[in-house]
Structures are given as C-alpha cells and as structure tokens.
C-alpha cells in the first residue's frame, strides 16, 4: 500500500510541476509587454497646451549649454579678436591658442562643440514649429510660441553662418534617415531664411511680457536681431528701419555701466535679449551655465578658470575715466566695486568683468557664477547700429545723435572725457562708430565678427595671423564632414 501511495504522490508532483511550467508560459504575451520605465514616449507628447509650453521652455533652457556659452562659444566668437587673450596659465587648454593665432585646423574639437550646440537649439525650435501647430490650444499663445521658436532658430543660424559660412539648413525635424544627410546651403539663402524667421517673429512677439514670462523673446529682440543680421549684409536701410523701430519701444541705457551687468540688474531697461540663467536650489543640472566660471578669476574659491581675458589692446583703448573700464575689466590686485579683493598672484592681469558675479553670491554646490545672465543684445548695440546705418545712408545727424547717447552714458558725470563726436564726414563718423562698438561691446563676443564684417580684419587681426580669403570663417568640423561621407565640403584654405 505504501508503495502505491508513493507512486501516486510522484504522479501528483509531476502533474503539479508540469502545470506550473505550462502556466508560466501561457501568460507570455503580457509578460513580455513591458513599457519603458520612467520615460514618456514621444507619441504621448505634443498633445496639449502644456506640452507646447514645455517644448518652448526647452528652447530657452538649452541656451545655457557649454557649447552655447562656454569654451566652444568663446573660442569661436571671442578669443580670436584683438580684445581677448586665452588667459589662465600658459599651459592650460592650449587649444585656445589655435584660434587666437589662426592656426586652427578642422579637427579641433570646439568647432564641433559650437556647431552641435547651435543645431541642438535648432532641433528644439523645429520640434516646436513642426508639432505645436497641430495642438488644440489658445490660438494667440500658439502663434506667440511659434514666433519665439523662430526667433531662437534665427539667432542660432546667425551664429552658425557667421562662424562657418554656408551651413546645412534644417527647417524641419528629419522625417527619416533619408533626410539625415543634407548638403550645405549657400550663406545668402541661410541669411534669407534668418530674415524671414525674424520678420515672422517680430510681427507676432509682444513688446513686453508679464512678470512670469520676462526673458522670452520680444518684438524688440526680433527687430534688434534683424537689424544686426541686416548689418552683416550691409542692408543699411533695413538696419536703420529696424533700429528706429526698436528705439521706439521704450528701451533706455542703464545709467550705471558696471551695475548694468550685475545679477541685481538682470533684464534691465537696456536689455533687448539676454540668456536667462539662475541658481535653482538643489539642482546643479539646471544650474548649468559655465559662462562665468570659465572666465572667472582663477585660484580663489568663488572664482573660475580665468579664460578669455581682456587684452592689452582693449585695456589701452579707453580714455582714462571711461566708466566702461571698470565695467569691462577686472584687474589683478584690485578691489571690485562690490568689495571683492582680487589677489595679486592671479596668473593674468585682467579678467572679464562683464561675466563677474560678486563673491558673496557664491554657492559651492553649483558652478560659480551660474546665475549670471548673458547679455546677447543691448540697447547700446541698437543705438550704435542705428548710428552706423544712418551714417552709411548719409544721415550724420541721426548717426551722431545715437552715437553720442552711448558716449554720454559712459562719460557719466565726468565732463572732461568722451566728448561728443561732432564730425560730419562719413568716414570719420564710421571710424568713430567702429571705435565705439569696440569700447562699448568689449568682451561681449561681438568684436571678432564685427571687425570681419567691417572689412578691416586683415588690418586689425592681420598682425595676429588673420588671412584674407580664409579666416572670414572657421573650418567646418572635420568629424561632421566625415560623418556626411564628404557630402559636406570644407571652407577654402582649411
């Protein structure tokens, strides 16, 4: 009997185990259908007004990235000019010298870094421009969002076209692999598209925003940017028209030049467009701007890395007493107006004051100076563009009026310096405007491309190694050419 029992138990076990096996395999379908964890599928996005808002916010958020504001941007747009030197210790990040002395070749990494950053901005704009139109939402808000995206796309293409000349022009998110690889579009076509975007943007964007939206692109920003883009193409009538419009929008020069760059005066009356950056408590990833850090005073806790420093040329360019000296340069061994003592032992004689954040605001949990906004377009620039365009069009009165407004603010109460320019011949006024742009916009990444578009690069940068018919643009990044299977061509001379 016992044996029989045992055999029965054996059978029973066998049946139980086999059915377990069958059971586990029978629920296979749902078992393998696992959704992505912690990732929202894109097909669920771009459905609501809230999605549109987030998509547009992302465009602004991305303007703080390393490639947009730090090393790649500073080597491409600043250090090659006569106003800036590499900085830091001689052996630190020597690739900066390749830009400073025009020996850079196509394989240098920052060429790709700057390129990528601009196209990342453009992708975020195209995502909005492709997807938001179909969203059912507040119609006027939708129109504004599309205009904001167009503004940033235009700004990014402007940075690209200045740096590289002809570039691939992407106005849509690629629909498939067949649209991944596209050739360079002629510079003129890119400029035309930039102008179209800015025209569209200016027609829609508001003159100002309510308190929860300060920092978004405005009508003034679109018009001002359009003026600058027109200036690079010598479309003087357009420059004059757009700057005149901006001058009617209520902007004014901030009285204290030094203070106008401090965080206490973000988005001030002079600001036409600036990149918004803040310390977000507890969130170092959102507090990601390294604009100030890479230019900060090295060797002190609240400082930085000490790159992109004002050169002897710019230091010698100011009249003594010019408010812009202290507003532009932070001197070794000095004390800042905010009371910070700069040691005498720092490796460089000067640092960029326009990126300076007072040490009392330093918090070691974040990149130092991460809260510094970047002044992209100031009303002073609008005035100087206005002056230059008026002069080129023969209106010396308006030219001098705008030019001297800028000088007056720099002069302050010191009547002994920076006398009004009174010349009436176009050549003298042109030279005066050029000079004023140098002084007013120093260390704001304007000078390098400004001198090139003025046609004076061989004269001004020639001693540093700049060569005509080559250095008007930087090389196309070699890795990008390689990845395109040589569909992309290289710029002449590289």
């Amino acid at each position: 009997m016992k044996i029989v029992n045992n055999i029965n138990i054996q059978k029973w076990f066998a049946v139980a185990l086999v059915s377990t096996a069958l059971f586990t395999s029978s629920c296979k379908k749902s078992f393998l259908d696992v959704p992505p964890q912690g990732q929202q599928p894109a097909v669920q996005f771009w459905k609501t007004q809230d999605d549109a808002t987030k998509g547009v916010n992302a465009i602004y958020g991305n303007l703080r990235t390393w490639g947009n504001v730090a090393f790649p941007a500073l080597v491409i747009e600043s250090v090659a000019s006569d106003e800036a030197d590499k900085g830091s210790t001689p052996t630190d990040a020597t690739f900066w010298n390749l830009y400073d002395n025009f020996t850079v070749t196509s394989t240098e990494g920052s060429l790709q870094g700057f390129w990528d950053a601009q196209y990342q901005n453009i992708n975020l704009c195209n995502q909005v421009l492709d997807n938001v139109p179909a969203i059912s939402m507040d119609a006027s808000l939708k129109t504004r969002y599309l205009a904001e995206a167009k503004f940033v796309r235009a700004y990014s293409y402007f940075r690209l076209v200045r740096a590289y000349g002809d570039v691939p022009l992407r106005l849509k998110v690629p629909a498939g692999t067949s649209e991944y690889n596209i050739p360079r579009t002629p510079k003129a076509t890119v400029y035309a598209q930039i102008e179209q975007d800015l025209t569209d943007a200016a027609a829609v964007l508001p003159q100002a925003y309510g308190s929860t939206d300060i920092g978004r692109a405005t009508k003034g920003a679109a018009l001002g940017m359009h003026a600058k883009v027109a200036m690079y193409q010598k479309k003087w009538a357009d420059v004059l028209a757009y700057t005149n419009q901006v001058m009617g929008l209520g902007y004014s020069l901030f009285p204290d030049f030094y203070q106008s760059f401090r965080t206490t005066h973000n988005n001030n009356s002079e600001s036409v467009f600036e990149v918004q950056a803040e310390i977000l408590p507890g969130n170092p990833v959102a507090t990601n701007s390294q604009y100030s850090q890479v230019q900060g005073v090295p060797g002190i806790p609240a400082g930085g890395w000490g790159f992109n420093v004002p050169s002897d040329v710019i230091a010698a360019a100011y009249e003594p007493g010019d408010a812009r000296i202290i507003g532009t340069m932070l001197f070794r061994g000095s004390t800042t107006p905010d009371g910070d003592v700069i040691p005498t032992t720092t490796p460089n004689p000067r640092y960029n004051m326009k990126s300076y954040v007072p040490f009392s605001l330093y918090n070691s949990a974040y990149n130092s100076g991460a809260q510094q906004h970047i002044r992209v377009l100031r009303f002073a620039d609008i005035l100087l563009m206005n002056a230059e365009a008026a002069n080129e069009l023969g209106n010396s009165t308006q030219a001098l009026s705008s030019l001297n407004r800028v000088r007056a603010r720099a002069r302050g109460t010191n009547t002994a310096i920076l006398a009004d320019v009174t010349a009436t011949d176009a050549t003298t006024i042109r030279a005066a405007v050029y000079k004023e742009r140098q002084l007013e916009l120093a260390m704001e990444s304007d000078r390098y491309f400004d001198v090139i578009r003025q046609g004076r690069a061989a004269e001004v940068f020639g001693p540093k190694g700049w060569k005509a018919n080559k250095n008007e643009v930087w090389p196309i990044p070699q890795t990008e050419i390689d990845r395109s299977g040589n569909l992309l061509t290289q710029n002449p001379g590289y």
Partner: protein
Amino acid sequence: MKQIFTKFSVLTFLCLLFMNAVSAQNITVKGTVTDGQDKTSIPAVSVMVKGTTVGTQTDANGKYAISVPANGTLVFTYIGYNTQEVAVNNQTTINAALASSSQQLDQVVVVGYGTQRKIDVTGSVASVKGEDISKQASTNAVGALQGKVAGVSIVNSGQPGKAPTVTIRGTGTIYGQTGVLYVVDGVWYDDINFLNPADIANISILKDASSQSIYGIRAANGVVLVTTTRGKKGDPTINYNGSIGIQSVTNAVKMANASEYATAVNESYKILNQPPLFPSTNLGEGTDWYKQILRNAMVTNHQVSINGATEKSSYNFSLGYLNQDGIVKKNNYKRYTARLSNDFQIFPGLKIGYNVTGVSSVSRDAPTSIFRDMYTAAPVIPVFNADGSYGDPSKLNLGNGPTSNPQATLDFFNQRNAKYKVTGNVFAELKFAKHFTFKTSAGGDFAQEENRTYTPKYYATASQNTTVSILGIDRIETRNWILENTLTYDNKWGDHNLTLLVGQTAQRYKSYTLNGTAQNVPYSTDGDLYLSLGDAATRLIKDSGSLNTADSYFGRANYSFKNKYLLNASIRADAASQFFGGSDLWGYFPSVGGGWVITNEDFMKDQKIFTNLKLRGSWGKVGNAGVPINPTTLSIDQGAGLIAFFNGQPYTGASVTTIVPPALFWERSAGTDIGLEMGFLNNRLSIEADYYSRKTEQAIFDIPVLGSLGTSNGKIIGNQADFRNRGFELAATWSDKTAGGLAYSISGNVGMNNNKVLNVTSGDNPIYAGGGGLVNAVIPTRTITGSPIGEFYGYKVSGIFQTPAQVAASAQPNARPGDFIYVDQNGDGKIDGKDRVSLGNPNPKYTYGVNTNFAYKNFDLTVDIQGVAGVDVYNGNLGARFGNENYTKKLYDNRWTGPGSTNTYPSANLAGGDNIQANSFYVESGAYIRLRNIQLGYTFPQALMSKWKVQKLRVFANAQNAVNLFGYRGFSPEVGGTPTNAGVDINVYPLFATYNLGINLTF
C-alpha cells in the same frame, strides 16, 4: 522482474526508514580510499550505496564512514579514477584502492542545465575546483581564477569590494551587459561578489559558443557556472578557514621631490618665456603624497561552515566575514555572508531543496579622485602649514593643474556604501519512469543598496572648500526572479548513450534607483544624515528604473556511440521584452558539436603513446539582449538642463532630443571551436588545445550621427557593427609522484586572441571614445573597421624638437624646442587630426598562467604565475596635464633640457602646446608577469590531531601579487575599462601585494 523487485525492496526499506528513522538492518562501514598507484589517500571520493541515493564523501584524509545495509554494495567514484564497487558482506572496514582511469571516462563536468562526462563534451569547458579558489585566501572568488584558465582574462580592480572584470576569449559585446553571465545553482547573476569563496564547490567556464548557446540571451560574453557546496553524508563536519593579512603597495611610481619639481616648473616657465615661479629650487624632499595617503592595510577573513547529511536530508550552513582595509587611509570594506542549503529526499525519486544566501556589506569609500590627486599634487606643498591649516597650492600660484591637497580631499570625503542582498532558489527534482528527471527551480535575487555621501561645510584650500554642506543619498532596489523547468531523459543501452533535455525559463529583472540631495544638513553624528534636516528649498529627488522580462525555451541532445563518436546539439529560443513590439521578438540560438575519441578505436589499442586522444569540433550561436527597453521608441527628454528661467523662476522644459532607429534586431554571434585533447603516460601529462573563431554580427552599437541633427547625445543605437575574436588556446598539465614521496602537478596555459572589427555602418568613420578624465577632450581610442575594438590612436612621435630652427622648418609652427615632433602622415605640411594613426591595442593578445602544486609529507606548496602580453596601455596620468602637475622621477631624470639632451623625452613643458594630445609617447606596453600566488602549507600529523578530536589542521602562509614585473611607467598595467574605452590609465588603483597567514581547521 528483478528490477522491479529491487526497486520494491529499496522503496520498502526507505518507507521503513520514513517511519522508524532507524533501520536495524544497517551496519556502519568505515574505511580509507587511496590511489591504487601511489597509495596516497584521496579526499572527496563519492561513496554511494549502490542503487540508492545514499552516500557520503571521504574526508581530507581519505576516510569515510557510512551506514549501509549489511548486504549492500558500496560504489566509490572519483574524477580521474575508475569506479569501483565493493560488496559489504557484513564487513565493517572496507578500504578501497582506486585505479587511475585511463580514459577519464567518469570525469564529470558541469555544463549548462546539467552535467556531462568530460569525455562526452564536444565544446570547450574549463573546470576549476572550489578548493583551488578557497585555498588562495582570496577576497573574491573570480579574482582567484586569474591565470588558471586559458583564454580567460581577468582584471582585478584592487578596490575593496569591487568585482573583477572577466573577459572570455576577447570582447564579445559592446553594448549593455559586457560582463560574463554567472549562473549560481541555476540563478543568473552579473557578479558573484556575494559568494563566500569557501562556499564554492566547482566553477565551470563555458568558453565556446556551442557550450554557451543554451544560455542564448545572455551568453555573448561567456558563461561561468558556479556550483555551491552541499552537505556531505556523515557526521557533521565543522570547517573553519581563517586568514589575516597585510596589503602593501608594490611597484609604486617614484615622483619628483620638491627641489626637482621646482626645477622642472621653472624650466617650463623659461621655455614659455615666463619669469621663474620658484625663486629658489633648493626645497628639499618636500611632501611625498603617496606616503601621506597610502598605508599598509590589514585584511581579515573568517569562514565557518557546518555541513552534514542523513539519508534523507543534507545541510550546509556557512558564515563568512571579511574585513578589508583599503590601501588608502580610511578606506574599509566589510562583508558578512550567511548561506544555508538544504536538500530533502522526500521519497526515492523526489528531492526538494533550497539555497539561500544573505549578504551584507559596508564600505567606507576612498575618494574617487584620490589616486589622480596624489599623482598630480605638488611636493612643494606641505600637508599642513605651521599654523595647522592645509597646505594650499593656490598660495604658490600653481595654476589649474595641481589644485588639490590630497590630505584635504581625504579628510572631507565621507561616503558610505551599504548593500544587502538575499538571494537563492528553491527546487524540486523528480526522477520517474527510470530515465526521466524533472526539475523545477525558482530563484530570486532581492537586493538593496544605499550610497550616502556627505560633504561638510569646510575651507581647506582655495579649490577645496564649500559654502554649504551637501548630503546625497542613493537607494537602489533590485528585484529579480528566474523560473526554470527542465525535463531530462537519460538512457544507456548497448553502445548507445543518450541524454535529452527540454526546458523552459521565465525571467524578470527590475531595478529602481531613488536619489535625493539636500544642502545645509548639520552633522554631529551619522544620525543627522537625513535629507529632511537640510534646507527644504534645496531638497531634490530623482529616480530611475529598469524592467526586463524574458521567456525562453530550449532543448538539447547528447549522444555518444561506443564512447567513440559523440554528437551534441542544442537550440534555445528567447523572447525578450526589449524587443517586444518589434519584428524580431524571438532570437534562436542553435548549436551542434561532434567528437571522436580516437583512443577508443580498435586500431589505437596497441599504441602506448596516448592514454587519451580526442578530437572535437563545435559550432553555436549566442545572443545579446542588453539594450534599452523598447529601443525603437522615441521618448521625451525632460532633463533639468531644459528648465527655463523667466524672471528668476524655473519652468519645466521638455522636448525630443534624440533619434532612434526604425528597427533593432537581436545581436547574434556565431562561433566555431576545434579542440584536441590528449593524455600521455597514463594521463600524467594531459594537453588540451583549441582553435576558435567567433563572429559577432549585427552588434548593437552606438554610432555617432551628424551634429546637425541636433541630438543631445550625438549618437544613434543600432545593429551597426560586425567583429570577430579568433584565437588559439593551449593548456597542459603534468602531474606525478616521485619515489621519494613528492607529489606534484605543473600546469600551464596560454591563450591567444585577435580582436578585429570587420565592419561598422559608419564606414571608415571611427567611433571615438575615451575622453573621460583626460584634459581638454583628448580622445585616445577609436573603433574602426579593420582594427581591434577601442584601439589607441593619436599622433606618432618621431622625436623631440631640439632647436628653434628645427621647429621653423617643421609642420608644427607653434611648437617649441623640447616638444614632441609628430609625424605628418598625410604630408600636407601641417599637423592636425588627420595625422593621427593607430598606436596600440588595449585588448590583450596573450594571456597565460603557470600553476604548480607540490606536496611532500605534511607540506604543500603552491606557486602560481600569471601574465599578459601583446597589450598596450595609454598612460593618461602622464599625459593629462593642465600645467604644473607633479612629474614622475623618471620623466624628470630623462627630460629634455637643451639641444642634444634627449630625443625621446619631452621638456618639462609637458603640458604645453600639442604635447598633451594623444600620442605614441603615452602608449606603452601593458605586458606583465606576476607571481600571482605563492603558498606554503603544513598539515599537522593525523596522530596528533585525533587526540584533539580534530580531523585536519593546516596552517599556511601565502603571498598574492608579491612580484610583478612590467615595463609600464604607471602604477599598474591592469587598467580595464569599457570595451570601446579600455586601457586608459587615469585613476587606477595601485597594485598591492597581500601577505596572509591562515589556518584550515576541520572537526
């Protein structure tokens, strides 16, 4: 009828046992098992009562005791010996002398989902006995395998508690899980750090594709099967293994002292036309940072196990304790393990059991950057100033290079990592209808990890200070399970031997990570370290997780005819959740193998040369599902970097910042193995040689995409590469015993592997990697068609510029005398990225080991030597410079000091110009040869021991890594790294030797 009767009687007998627990029929038989040839005792011989599952094993002295029916028969089985049967016939003492098996017929190896006679194996499987691992007094079972098995490359990190990197026959996959699969008693793991080395009975390494393919989905990098110790029949045995050791840095790199450093810095400033930094260079020795931060560190290891078994059940219970100090001060790792396994023979034919391991570890971590900090720190900086403050490099204006005082780095670093894990399985095994075995097993792995980092508010130096304290806590939970059912049919009739297996597996892997940070958390005790004590506004919570499931079916047939002709075939089908919804949900992984035991042929009968000669060949496919979930699903990026600020306030940003491929397929690799096994001189000499070639097709790879696509990561995943590992392995063992009583074995193994990328969809465009940790995005590795994965590349140095005239005439107009001269490969008159070429291979071409054992009377000696050759290392430490980092003494002594001084070493201005670019000066041979383990043991005489009721007492002294020979100019040529970025030495744990004293005690 007879068979039925036998079964009847045994069952009846066992049923009686069930009820009465004691059988009056049984007698206890004792005895000793010896080698028939040399008369030495043999431990661990299986002693079974014939026709039952009752049995025991011989102890360390070859002795056994077993309760057996007076009319029963004992079966003695041991690997390498012929099985012997002895009828009991009321004898109470039965000594057995086993004859060495001429054909290793009975040697059994563990293979996927079962065991196989060694002779029947047609793939390449290496077996390592547990005692070979446990006797090394190693802190990690896998690390102890280094040099033991041909073709298995192991890189030990040195960091306490960190698992070694194991590569079997070259890099098998690039993406996802690039490590081997460990299967412990049927449960799958990514590492076996949780196992106490003493709990391991056997490790089987499946090296060829045909052996691995039964684990299809996860087999692409090889499979390591671990069998744990189970209770042995007989009286309870208590084992204690303990050792205490000291770890000491070997092969330290000598750095420049203060005077030398100041001299070199002044020289580099002079080259750069700067005034000297140091007014006087007569600064003496200065600070030896390595001496300041490193120490001789203790390691203590205790393992206790109790095991035993009755006829109906067996048990094995073990406890382990490891306390290892790191060679960096304050660094400590403690691990507690507990393991319990039970088997119950419910009735003949049905066995159930379980294994469960609990492990807890606590690590006080070393700062991750400390090795780099020590290397770069200026010797002119005092540890502390006279006033007690930290020596501050910024006070001497040393610039962006050596900004840290390593002592401050260490003092203000507080990171504690605690891990808890419970893992194991329950199983039932049913033998029925004579030939069938059904086994079901459910395994689980439940782990929790807490990583806590606290940085206080402090001021040490200008670059080492904080204005707020920060507390970060990560909690990682893992919940995995695996369910397996297998049915085996095993039959032997006439000349035929057949085993069939079918099986099914379901698996689920889930992990979840919660990360929180807060600022201004006060600290007086660890009890303060709660996020809720920090500033409310700064508290940040993040989380992430993963979930994978897989469903699999497999089958295998093993057939042998006359023990001469062997045929094995298997197939596995896997469906993985990663591919759900795609066109390629199922992956199929077949294998086939054949063998010919030539010595069993009639025509070989009279030859005297070979004791064993076997030719085998196999082919198989394996897969890799290590890709993100639903890799073709585009998802939203809501990263904090996309947060926008308006009027100072944050607003969430989200968008699409990546691209995905339209389809993704299983990565499959197919491999062939041809092997020859030879035994000579009655198997005193055995040789095993293998040739293999494995091609990984449609390897899942990230390839870079056009920057103008505007993605945030610049890459796209896809099936975009094919690569191949091809090589040759040779293993030989000689074992013998001299007339004088010296028993010894000497085995050597060598593996040669060639790794080559056959095709990348990015065409001739390299996939670059390796920028991490090096300055200014210097990228020293690339993966490109026709080269090994992750080869080093950069400029070829042809010499050193001696004069300004030489510079002026060169392709490097910005160079200075003392700088590297780079070869203008394309002859375009300038040096740029297009002049970079292959500089070396981080994948070792040769791995080898020599393992020896000697036993004479009560003494035993083990000497293991191991090494690699044909491999390169990128000396990132030397080349990564911002400026005034310290110099190695070697560089200082050999540096260029003026025209004609040297054409090999650069000037002190090493950080200047293009000297920091990846170049051939920094690529060095990574070959080394090492005295991996030397151990001398003494076993106390039996006579003495029995008085103390001790079965065995052995004391030993050993040294691990005591001698390391290599030409590499860094701390250790064992660098490791991910497949596309391996061998870049930037922050490697220095090599250290461990000297242990230990005892093995058995009651």
